[in-house]
């Protein structure tokens, strides 16, 4: 049986990809951010995932406004990265897991999530940067299932809806009959705003509140509308929806393993959060 071995939230700022390309991990500006991943690497060595389900948002690489799905599930044998237009080095393709993808799609549609399915899907920095951060040598031991959430064009799915999406994905993984150790990722955020006179907006208090509630009471965040989230976290701070979906998928007993939070990376409050997910039955037995 498949097991969800942990949840991970991380920023996916493109500048991180540039910093990796230039080898700036020890540079004083970048070090407080990259050092957080030392703990992530130890944690990954402990939980040993072999599949990563990744909630993220596309920034205009695979999807355009001509056809923009609210929720899209990757079902490809391989996911290529490609030129995003502003100079990030293109990374090697990642191996997919069509079998788990289709199992998740079956589960989601059964649970009334009418998702878009993608047998071809380019993945942008929102998938690539986290993969580079988690496995910097390029030796990721995981196949991936990317799940894109629209955070580009309003109306966006609500906080509650994204949490429920994650819960449905968690249920599907939970009844996957094959042995698998699944890590669930939510990428993006936290607070930031790139556009408008309010560009540069960052809200540490709201980020702290979100990260706190994400551990033990994610339901509390469903009281926020997406306009509230934009007001409190910035226009691109809505990427926290990916974190909500990740958290929803953790159907066991959740505890915080590690958090790193650093302002600023580029225009963003950068965050990393590692969540342990113990099967409820194991806890009851103990």
């Amino acid at each position, binding site marked *: 049986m498949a097991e969800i071995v942990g949840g991970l939230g991380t920023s996916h700022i493109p500048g991180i990809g540039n910093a990796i390309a230039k080898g700036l991990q020890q540079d004083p500006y970048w070090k407080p951010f990259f050092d957080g991943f030392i703990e992530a690497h130890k944690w990954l060595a402990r939980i040993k995932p072999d599949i990563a389900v990744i909630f993220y948002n596309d920034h205009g690489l695979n999807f355009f406004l001509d056809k923009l799905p609210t929720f899209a599930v990757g079902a490809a044998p391989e996911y290529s990265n490609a030129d995003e237009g502003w100079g990030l080095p293109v990374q090697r393709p990642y191996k997919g897991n069509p079998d788990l993808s289709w199992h998740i799609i079956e589960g989601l549609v059964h649970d009334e999530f009418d998702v878009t399915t993608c047998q071809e899907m380019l993945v942008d920095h929102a998938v690539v940067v986290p993969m580079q951060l988690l496995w910097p040598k390029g030796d990721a031991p995981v196949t991936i299932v990317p799940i894109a959430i629209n955070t580009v064009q309003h109306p966006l799915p609500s906080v509650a809806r994204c949490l429920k999406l994650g819960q449905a994905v968690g249920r599907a993984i939970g009844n996957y009959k094959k042995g698998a150790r699944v890590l669930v990722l939510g990428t993006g955020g936290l607070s930031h705003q790139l556009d408008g006179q309010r560009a*540069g907006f960052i809200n540490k208090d709201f980020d702290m509140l979100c990260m706190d509630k994400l551990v033990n009471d994610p339901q509390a965040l469903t009281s926020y509308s997406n306009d509230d989230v934009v007001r409190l976290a910035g226009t691109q701070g809505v990427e926290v929806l990916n974190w909500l979906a990740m958290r929803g998928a953790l159907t066991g007993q959740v505890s915080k393993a590690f958090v790193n939070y*650093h*302002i600023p990376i580029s225009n963003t409050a950068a965050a990393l959060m590692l969540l342990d997910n113990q099967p409820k039955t194991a806890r009851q037995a103990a």
Partner: protein
Amino acid sequence: MTSHGIPGTTIFDGVEAQKGYALNKMCFSFNSAENRAAFLKDEDAYCAKYGLTRPQREAVASRNVLQLIAAGGNVYYLAKLAGILGLGVQDLGAQQTGMTVDAFKAKLLEAGKA
């Protein structure tokens, strides 16, 4: 400028998405190096090919980000145009807030100390 009642913020909704479609479609095309080169070679012709509205064409000519947003541009697509022009997100931030890039960066650092 406000939208959805959030100061200094435009929510990119159906109204903006319709208004900005041609501009965003042109910017989306900049994922291709060949298209970026074509834009740089003949900006007028490239904008005409995508049917930019007059406010959109003027906004592109002005390199003014607030004007590009007012013309319906979405920042994720505009970032690809900015890339052609050699501008990063901090340059965009500085321009939109009327600050120098150094002052904008200092403001971000300050947010971390609060």
